[in-house]
């Protein structure tokens, strides 16, 4: 049994595919590639896979992570070549690495995520610059999402704006369970419709893995 972490790009072809569906997309990719996934025990055995952090619909990403457990002892290079032949358009596999079997679930060790927003050419930049400045100066920024009040401000770790064409916004948002900043919420706070911009996730910061696990490969 080995546990493998895939780093991949999620491109435009899959930008409207949500997290649950993406899980199925991967499951079928493994089947096509004949990579034998390990299954959970119980009445409804499920293939063992973890995804790091759901990507909101409509965005692309250069830092998607997926852990899988597999019964084969094939090398990472062999696995990668098999998977690349079977992967769905829209997924670009970057690297495969081994992870200690006992390492904590992937979704529990994500700390923050970086999003790059490219604004359309005809955008009025001055008010955006002003709003970015305002938002960074705020201490509290209460928002309403699906009927629930929450404070967006502490979820924003960094927020900068560049007017050089094409104009971009850089944001680093918290991405911990129960404390996840959503890029479209920040955009709406800045008065920008998330439907007219391109958003790419470019970085995921993981919490350090405890040493006893690290030594236990």
């Amino acid at each position, binding site marked *: 049994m080995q546990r493998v972490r895939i780093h991949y790009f999620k491109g435009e*072809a899959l930008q*409207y595919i949500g997290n649950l569906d993406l899980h199925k997309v991967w499951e*079928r990719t493994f089947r*096509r590639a004949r990579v034998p996934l390990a*299954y959970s025990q119980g009445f409804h055995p499920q293939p063992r896979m973890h995804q790091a952090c759901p990507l909101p*619909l409509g965005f692309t990403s250069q830092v998607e992570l997926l852990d899988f457990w597999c019964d084969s002892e094939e090398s990472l290079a062999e696995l990668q070549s098999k998977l690349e032949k079977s992967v769905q*358009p829209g997924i670009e596999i970057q690297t495969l690495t081994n992870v200690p079997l006992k390492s904590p679930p992937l979704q529990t060790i994500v700390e923050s995520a970086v999003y790059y927003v490219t604004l359309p050419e005809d955008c009025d930049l001055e008010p955006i610059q002003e709003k970015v400045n305002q938002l960074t100066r705020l201490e509290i920024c209460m928002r309403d999402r699906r009927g629930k009040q929450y404070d967006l401000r502490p979820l924003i770790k960094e927020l900068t704006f560049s007017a050089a064409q094409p104009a971009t916004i850089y944001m680093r948002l918290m991405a911990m369970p129960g404390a996840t900043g959503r890029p479209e919420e920040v955009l709406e706070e800045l008065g920008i419709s998330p439907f007219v911009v391109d958003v790419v996730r470019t970085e995921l910061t993981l919490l350090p893995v405890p040493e006893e696990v690290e030594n236990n490969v």
Partner: protein
Amino acid sequence: MLNRIEIKKKLKAILPTVVKPGRYFGGEFNHVVKNWDEIGLRMALVFPDIYDIGVPNLGISILYETINKRPDTLCERAYVPWLDMEEAMRENSLPLYTLESCAPLAEFDVIGFTLPYETLYTNVLNAIDLAGLPLRSADRNDSHPIIIAGGHAAFNPEPMSAFIDAFVIGEGEEAIHDVLDCIKSAKTENLSRLQTLERLQAIPGIYVPAFYDVTYNENGSVQSVEPTSPRFPKKIVKRVVGILPDPPTHFIVPSIDVVHNRIAVEIMRGCTRGCRFCHAGMVNRPVRERSVEQIVNAIEESMKNTGYEEIALLSLSSSDYTQIEELVSTISEKFAGRNLVISLPSLRIETFAVGLMEKLKGVRQGGFTLAPEAATDRMRNLINKPIQAEQLLETARQIYSRGWNSIKLYFMIGHPFETMEDVQAIADLCKQVIKEGRKIIGNKASLHTGVSTFVPKSHTPFQWTALDSIPNVLDKQNLLKDQLRTPGMKMTWSNPRETILEATLSRGDRRLSNVIEDAWRHGAKFDAWMDQFNYNLWIDALEGAGLPPEIYTSREREISEVLPWDHISTGISRKYLEREYKKALAGETTEDCRDQCLACGIVPTLTDQLKEKDGVNWVCLEAA
């Protein structure tokens, strides 16, 4: 009209605002994108319901793969948008487009609709309209695509005759090539639309309704259907393939969840049982089987190509597949331990079926489905599906004792001459079944009863019979609802108003084209969706056309009457249907025609087509 690039651009702004945008973006595994500018002949296949329902359709899967194997043709897919997307499309003047190239339907040479059932008709109109094309065949000109349609409902093409240029009657695997070749040469020769349609009508199995005139009697029935010129055949005989070709193995793998996420392999086509209500059993004759090897290879190949975890072995009567034991044991040995779900529906009610299913269950799941259809001997003899109650009970005992907790039974009410006693017998039988289950596994035992309402269908021995009335059907449903919804028992039933619509559309004549258009103009669409169906729109439309629904539904037809589909031949003779109808009225059953040929007419009518492939005389399968 917007071009492909403009459509893509607009989608970017629209898709984030609609539910399940993955429906409208394509990009699935196994989709085929050919070079638009390099390929001269372009066909769009349209399933007239949403993506989730259309993707698993086997007919579309077969045609998509078959057509895209032609180097000279490009074939893409479109589905009907759900209400939110339709609204967004209309607001943004976005035409209906194909998923592969984002190309507007109007840019294709041929548009092909599949018509598996009648309640999709208004969606077809909606699709043609969303494509920016004139609804009616007569209003389209040389610049418009040719619109064709096929599928089970097309065996009575008349109600949709105003909108479809040409129907393909019967099986499409070979006919589609004839149609495409014809349209290709018409394009090279720069033929007019009329000339193209004339050439299409010359292809066996093709029906161009514009070349046929219908007259009516004073009582509203059809008087005659005649070709407008002696060049056109009086009867259109359906197409069949003599030998089933290899099944599709490159199924579209959608990236979102759809109604069936599976590999479907048709193990056999046609049925010899002769149940008198069954449209599929009549129109799909003769029986043709695929070999075990062909089926197993197709499964292996499809698994490699799709990664699906579920396989369905389809046919109208799986127990009648002559090599069923060998097939099931080969499959269970070959694919054991791979966490697959393999389903084998349409099994006969006998303990043998339980043994088959037991071999296939890997990850045990769901229930076990059986279709007794009726519960008294009188009704079973009438519909020609004789099953002993004890046989059903013994099968149920086996199912519950071999690890299934739930059984689903399908019954039909509204058969001709049905009484309340016959309906009560359904309730009694169900109660007996659950009682057996409880004896074996206690309160874990559950029973789901599906009660549909009989619709007399064209081309069956019951095509002359009347539809049961709404008050009768409601009484019968209430009787069952009172008794079959207790702890451990569940019942589902069909809306009698939807049944009326289905009966009207499936046995109607071409005057219904006006009714369908009128209903659609007043908002009818997604009629197969319980929450979208609006009965009053249809009643108003029928009234507006001066056609009381009774002339199509509750009226028993005379044997001598010209039926609106009499010029369409399934290969089965009218004489055979009449004989079966009379036997039904006399309460007589008819044996399986594998035991004794009943001269249904299939062989003499289709002999040329059946011979074509292997050059020898066709012989129907006999009992093993």
